[in-house]
């Protein structure tokens, strides 16, 4: 299955620059699905060098899936020599909606959601009467945030929404940013020595899951350091799971997402049996 990464973020958050960096760094061919309505300009030269390809997305019909551009693009990649897909979410997309392609399009899997935020504008965007909620969702739903042009104030605000924040200056290799390991390490803490031993696994499911089963599983595997994700429970309840060494917490979520939990652990995990 081809891994899919979603790059989310509001207008002006730097998605173009980041995607160009991915294309430049990629060692094997990747496909980039870009949104046609934004500001995105892909550097054509970078693509030629890499045998990578770019497909552009439009949104045709708003009421049905009769013209599903992302789906059509993913389907067209099957059988091509592509090792990874990056989807640029449009500025108004909630990343989970796009990530659902990674979770639900046959032949693909979701690697992660990376959201970009511009330190100068994120504070006011979060307060915006029209898009405040959307931008908040982009930050909350991401596995990692890349913050450009940090400013003290917004960093505090952002940490309250998502603790896994990278500052632009601490990233040396952008492709690494997508590897679960890189952000797994970041998740846990600062000691570079311990990093090597952490691993991460992602559990996804399309069936409702019992909260108690997850709790039991966490107790059974004390080597799990962190867990975070969305859980679709029975009776159509959606919740956000956050587990740290100090405890496990389920909070109600208004995002209708399928179950997807990222586990960060050392050693071995027992098989998922939810």
């Amino acid at each position, binding site marked *: 299955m081809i891994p899919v990464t979603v790059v989310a973020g*509001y207008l002006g958050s730097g998605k173009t620059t980041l995607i160009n960096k991915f294309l430049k760094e990629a060692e094997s061919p990747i496909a980039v699905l870009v949104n046609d309505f934004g500001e995105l300009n892909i550097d054509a030269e970078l693509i030629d060098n890499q045998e990578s390809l770019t497909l552009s997305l439009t949104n045709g019909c*708003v009421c049905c899936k*009769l013209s599903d551009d992302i789906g059509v693009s993913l389907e067209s990649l099957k059988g091509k020599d592509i090792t990874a897909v990056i989807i640029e979410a449009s500025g108004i997309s909630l990343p989970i909606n796009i990530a659902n392609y990674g979770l639900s*399009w046959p032949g693909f899997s979701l690697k992660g959601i990376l959201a970009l935020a511009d330190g100068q504008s994120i504070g006011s965007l979060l307060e915006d009467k029209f898009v405040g909620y959307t931008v908040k969702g982009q930050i909350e739903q991401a596995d990692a945030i890349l913050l450009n042009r940090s400013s003290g104030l917004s960093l505090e605000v952002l940490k309250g929404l998502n603790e896994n924040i990278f500052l632009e200056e601490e990233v040396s290799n952008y492709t690494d940013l997508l590897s679960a390991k890189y952000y797994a390490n970041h998740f846990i803490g600062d000691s570079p020595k311990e990093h090597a031993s952490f691993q991460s696994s992602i559990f996804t499911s399309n069936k409702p899951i019992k909260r108690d089963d997850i709790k039991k599983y966490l107790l059974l595997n004390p080597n799990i350091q962190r867990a975070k994700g969305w859980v679709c429970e029975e009776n159509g309840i959606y919740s956000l799971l956050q587990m740290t060494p100090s405890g496990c917490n389920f909070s109600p979520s208004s995002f209708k997402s399928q179950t997807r939990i990222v586990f960060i652990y050392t050693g071995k995990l027992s098989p998922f049996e939810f």
Partner: protein
Amino acid sequence: MITVFPAKSIITMNASMPSAEAVAVRDGKIIETGTLESLQPWLSKHDHEIDEQFKNSFIVPGLIDPHLHPSMAAVLLPTYFITAMEWKMPWGTTPATRSPTEYDERLKEALSKPTHGELFITWGHHNLWHGPISRSRLNSIDSKTPIVVWNRSFHEVCMNDAALELLEIKQEDVENATQIDFEKGRFYEIGLGYAIQKLNPYILAPEVFKEGLLKLKEVVHFGGQTTIADMAVGLFDFEAELNTQAALYENEDTPFRVELIAHATVMQKGNSVEQAEELIAKLPERNSHRLNFGKRVKLFTDGAFFSQVAQLMEPGYIDGHHGEWLSTPEQFEDNARVFWNKGYAIHVHCTGDLGLELAVDTLEKMQDERPRFNHGFTIEHFGLSTPEQIFRLSKLGANISANAYYVHELSDIYSNDSVGFERASSMARVGTSFREGITTTLHSDFTMAPAQPLMSMWVAVNRVNEKGNVMCEEERITPQQGLEAITINAARVLGLDHEIGSIRAGKKADFTVLQENPLEIDPLKIKDIEIKATVFEGKVFNIKTQ
């Protein structure tokens, strides 16, 4: 040669002469309305015939549906309808089906007829009425015919074993996909996209698309319409949509015209808004007699009302979920500015009150930057709104094109499960918009609601929902306003009021012939008035009664 049509009454929608007894027509245009006596100065000097076929009927201006989607209709109409609401179609009425057992019976009955093709697709399933659908339920009804059940909201399909086999959807290919429940045969959201890809060869095949557009032609005539607007050409494929409509509708036996409004973001595809505007500016070069592009464009703010993704202001949805934007406010404003400055009438799809707020704020900004009068900025759909927004819309000179059918189908469920009674009962606030003096029309957004202007008028006048309850009587409009909405106001909103929308000397001879007077009949019967015929540019097109 002048043809004179006497009638029991001609309701002209021309305030200077609201009713008449006869109308004289020559070369597709109205010469004069009045009485047989008052028409004499014309008749005594020119050849004429008196056509008495409507002498026991009522003539109103040709009805107009100012917002529907021929391409969506073309996809939907070839499917078999089993729906919770009654749908009147030229080929028969689909009765309301309101329980799981009834649903299964209807499905069995349909499958027993030999008329369906290789793949049987039915549309209209709704969990609340028809119970959860699954592969095994469908298998038990018919395991040999490939069946696809398409949800009323278009957001889910369910298939039986035979359909999965025909479409070559295998368990091993889809088992990791979280929005595909293979065991139950259900495909939703992203999974639906996958299923639709497999279904596309069947539903978007050129022959099927043509069949659908030909069926729409019957539907439009049956609804008494002589003008419709395709309010977003390019939903699937701009060229195919335009060329197929031109091939099928530009001929003598089509009893209506189509006003075409381009979907701005589709025209933009990869280019700047300015480039999109240049392309749209050239579209009138492709106009023909019945198909016309004017200086108008379609933009979008928030998500679909039926799917509960309209953007709402506080206090939002009961369950705390939020709606969706279809473009960022910045992009919306940039697009609006380009078209505003070039003098376009901008039609904005907005469904929730926050989506509407964006449209109103933007219009206010445009008026500040570069004031315009009679600019035709139109709010399309008008699901939820506040009285204060309507006041602002009135001051800013906007028009409103409302989908009043929301009140009928959704106000009860949305009271309980979506936004609560106060806001659900006041969706499509057309009473306030008439009181504020806004040019207000009604549309079907077909396939979202039946393409029957008399049905739209009936809902707006009565506000009776599917449970039979009157929802917000203060927002009801009078029959007179209702008829204005689907005739002269619709023409104004499409910028065609100099040619159609009322019956007066000089306008096109477009009429709808009714068996009852819609202004005098019990308002609860408006939707059931028999439509006898339409007249398009002077030519009579009879409607077969079922």
